[in-house]
Structure formats: C-alpha cells, structure tokens
C-alpha cells in the first residue's frame, strides 16, 4: 500500500506541487510582508517599483512615532488587552457552565431553551446596535469599556462549541460519581472541566482573537479617544496621518503582529476548534 502510494506520487512531482503551493501561499501573505517592509522604509521608497523587499535604509522612526507621543499605541494596547482578557475569561467560564447544563443535566425545557439560543444566531448585530446604544446610554455604560466587556461575556458560539465537546465525554464517567453522591457542581469542577481543558483553551484563543479584532462594537460604543482599542486607535492614526504611508504601515503592524503571534502559538487549538464546531455542528 505504502509502496504503491509512493509510486503514484513520486518525489519530483511532490516537489513541484510543493513549490507551486508555496508560491501561492506567499502571494497570500505578501500583504503582511509588504506592510512590514514598508514600515521600515523611507517615504520616497514606499511606492518604488519594482518593489524593494529589503529597504535600502531601514529606519525605526515610524514605529517610534506610533508608540510615543500623546496618542501612543500603548494606551490602545492596554485598553484592548483589558477588554479582551476580561471578556475572554468571562466568556469561557460562562459558556462552560451553560454548556454543562445544556449537555449533561436533563431539566424541563432544556431543548426549547437551546433552540432559543441557536435562533439568536440569526439576529444580525445591526439589529442590536441601536437598542443596545439606547440601553447602555440609560444604564450609564455607554462610552465605557463595560459596553464591550459585558456583552462579550456571552457567546452563543462558545456555548455551542463547548457543549459539542461535553457531549463527546462518555456519560458513564459522571454517572458513577453521581451514584457515589457527588452533585453536579462537584462533577463539573472536578471531573468535566479538567477533561475539557483543550476545548476551553480553544474557545479562549478564538474568543480572544475576536475580541481583539473587534472594530464594529468599539466603533459604536466608544467615543472617548482615551478609551480606544487598537482597531479604533489605528483608524484614528490613519485619519490623522493620511499621507504618512510608512507610519500607517507601522501602525497596521502594531495591530496585526500580536495576532500573528497568537496564531503561531495557538494554531493547533484554533484549527481544531473551528473544525470541530463546523464539521460536527
């Protein structure tokens, strides 16, 4: 079998296909490479053609500009980190709790409630923006980070994804503990949560990336520049520096590079999580 496969798909052919796929893959990531090199170039080099992939006189000035001064990206980073970290931790635990209820306890109305959950996925966020704006204004959390953190705690996708994982844990495991007199809280905390660590990590990484990248909610609910998250700060920087292309790309790098790092570290979890919730869903 193995031998036959090799004969079908011999080494030179494998090499050629690999090179072709690599060429296309490089086209996919060229915008990132261009962004990084441009951020290190001098203004006159930006649109030189043919493109110089290595700047002749690399300079960090544009990055310095982005990270210092009155509107330093440091503030935006702290704001984004605060919102994304608190939001992610909250979302992960609340989703895990709900997912346990929806998958391992049989109570009245469970399936009907779950249908309500799923149907909420059909409501576009645009329907919710105006009423949330009015409600947040009334509650005094409009133009505060809470306007992003509190709604961020509740993710239907998260409940759905963790529930999928809990359903795959054999019932016998909790049944015997149940007979021994352990209640649902103990089973959840001592037995199920430790088993679910990979699923929780997956949700946490995906949710973090969503919250970090979230531009639309921040756009609607924040007006105070000091409260801006990275995407809003980036937009602000670009509106104020419309002709400083190098600075724009240095600012864009500040927004993108952390996500690339998160992706490199958590690639396995991200891919696993997205695949599981899509294919088995």
């Amino acid at each position, binding site marked *: 079998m193995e031998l036959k496969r090799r004969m079908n798909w011999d080494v030179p052919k494998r090499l050629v296909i690999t090179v072709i*796929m690599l060429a296309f893959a490089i086209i996919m990531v060229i915008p990132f490479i261009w962004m990084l090199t441009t951020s290190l170039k001098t203004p006159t080099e930006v649109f030189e053609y043919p493109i110089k992939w290595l700047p002749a006189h690399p300079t960090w000035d544009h990055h310095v500009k982005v990270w210092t001064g009155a509107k330093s990206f440091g503030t935006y980073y702290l704001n984004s980190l605060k919102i994304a970290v608190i939001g992610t931790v909250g979302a992960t635990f609340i989703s895990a709790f709900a997912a346990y209820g929806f998958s391992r306890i*049989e109570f009245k109305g469970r399936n009907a409630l779950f249908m309500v959950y799923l149907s909420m996925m059909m409501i576009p966020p645009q*329907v919710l*923006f*105006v009423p949330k704006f009015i409600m947040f204004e009334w509650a005094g959390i409009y133009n505060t980070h809470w306007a992003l953190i509190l709604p961020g705690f509740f993710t239907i996708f998260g409940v759905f994804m963790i529930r999928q994982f809990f359903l795959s844990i054999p019932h016998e495991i909790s049944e015997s503990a149940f007979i021994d007199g352990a209640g649902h809280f103990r089973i959840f905390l001592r037995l199920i949560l430790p088993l679910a660590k990979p699923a929780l990590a997956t949700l946490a990484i995906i949710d973090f990336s969503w919250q970090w990248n979230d531009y639309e909610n921040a756009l609607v609910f924040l007006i105070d520049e000091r409260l801006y998250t990275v995407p809003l700060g980036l937009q602000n920087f670009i509106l104020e520096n419309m002709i400083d292309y190098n600075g724009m790309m240095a600012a864009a790098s500040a927004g993108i590079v952390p996500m*690339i790092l998160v992706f490199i570290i958590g690639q396995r979890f991200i891919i696993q999580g997205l695949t599981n919730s899509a294919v088995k869903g």
Partner: protein
Amino acid sequence: MRNNWMRRQRLLGYVFIGPSMLGILLFFLIPAAYSFYLMFTNYKFMSPNVDFVGFDNINRLLHDDLFYKSLKNTIVFLLAVPVSVALGFLVAVVLNEKIYLKKLLRGLYFMPYITSGVAVAFVWMLLFQPKQGPINGLLRSIGIDNPPGWLSTTTSSMYAIDIIWVWFMLGYNMIIYLAALQEVSPELMEAAKIDGARRSQVLRKIIWPLVSPTTFLLLVTGLIMSIKTFGIIQAITQGGPGNSTTILSLYVYQNAFRYYDMGYASTISWALFVIILIITAVQWIGQKKWVHY
C-alpha cells in the same frame, strides 16, 4: 430523600445556564424586541418626541433607491463567498495530497483569517492605490497600461472589496475542507485509481459529491457571516466612492450613527434579518435536496 436530592440536582440545570441565559436576555432578546418596536417609530437620537408612525418606515424603505442600491452591492459582495469556497476546496485537495511542508502551507493560507480587522484593510488600501500602488505597478510592468482604479472608482470598488474578502475567507474554507477530506476513506480513493479513473475524475465524481455537505455548510455560514460584516468597508471606503460600496449592514450603521435616524435604521436592520432568514430556510430545505450523503 434520595429522590428529593435527584430532583434538586436536576433543577441545578437552571443554575448552570442561568448566567448565560441572563446575558442572552439582556444583550440579545430584549434589544431585539426593542429594535422591533423602534421599527414602527420615528425615534431619532437626542430628539425628545418619539411618535408611533406605523408602517411609514417600511414604506420609506420600499421606495428608497439607496436601499436597493445597497441591496445590489450586498449581492456583489456576497459573490466573494462561493469564489472563496471553491478556492478553499482546491487548496485543501492539493494540501491533502502527499506533499512537503504541509503544516507550514496550511498556516500561511490560514493566516489572513486570524488577522482580520481594520489593520489588514488599511494595508489593502495602499496595495490597491491606483496611481502608484504595487498591484497596479505589477500590472503595468506586465503590459497592462490601463489597470483598474480598484477602490477609487464606482465601477470597480465593490470588486476590489470582493478580492479582499476572498483572500480573507479562503483559509477558513480550506481548514474545514481539510477536516472533511480526512473523513473520505483512503480505500475508496485508492480503488478509484486502480479502476483507472483519472485524477480529475476522482475529484469530480467522488470527492466533490462526498464533501457536498461541507460545501453547503460553508456556503451558508459564509453568506450569513459576510452579510453581517461592515467593518472593513467602513474602515477603508465608508461606503464610497458615491455609495458604490454601501452594503446593507453598512447602510444600517450609517443611518443609525451618522444620521441618528434610528427608527429607520432599525427597519433596514430587520430587512437584513429577513435575508438571513431566507438563507437559513434555503439551508433547511436544500440540505435534503442537494446534498449527497
């Protein structure tokens, strides 16, 4: 005694879903109901009187040229979805073969999806720069003297957005297809080859039908996901030039937070909901009809 305990344990179900349910109520159900009510009012931000106007907003919507234009733009925008699904399939099929550097390649194709957001949109804005941008630089160097104006002309701007969107979605579709291809039994594919079926035929007659549930799922989720998006468009064109990239979701945002015409914005947002409802209904019916299991 034991029975009582069992019953209490079952009631714990409500405690477990309680926090989440509260959030769904506060941030989904109540706002949705509120928005439905707003659809029948002339609510404007900062204006003190709110009147019930019945079906005025809906009438206005049906006679609003800009609504139809943004509907049309939305459809052009959604063209990116089938294209990115098809490309995702092709990439997945090749990556599923015995080639080198699989993991690296998978990561590179997937990268745009994780770095979504405005940052990437601004990079594309410069890449697409019509006079000096690198994309048109490349096109000129291969002999195209009049390359498109991309984001700067009313006729090409929506397609330029489509290119960005295909680029963004491709990796996600690829990842899901790769998982689906794992389920196709290798014996089946070996057998097909022994039977002398050519590679392209194996692809068309065996693999493509076998992954059709995945194709369907990706199309539907891709359409729904895309129709809810407006961030990248707001960031780089704000719907311009001349409303040529105003899609429905962006039109809602503009009415609500640029013109503060919130009653009308709510009305448009429910039109968006109706479209999602139709896509979902097609999914329910179509799943049985077109998908080969």
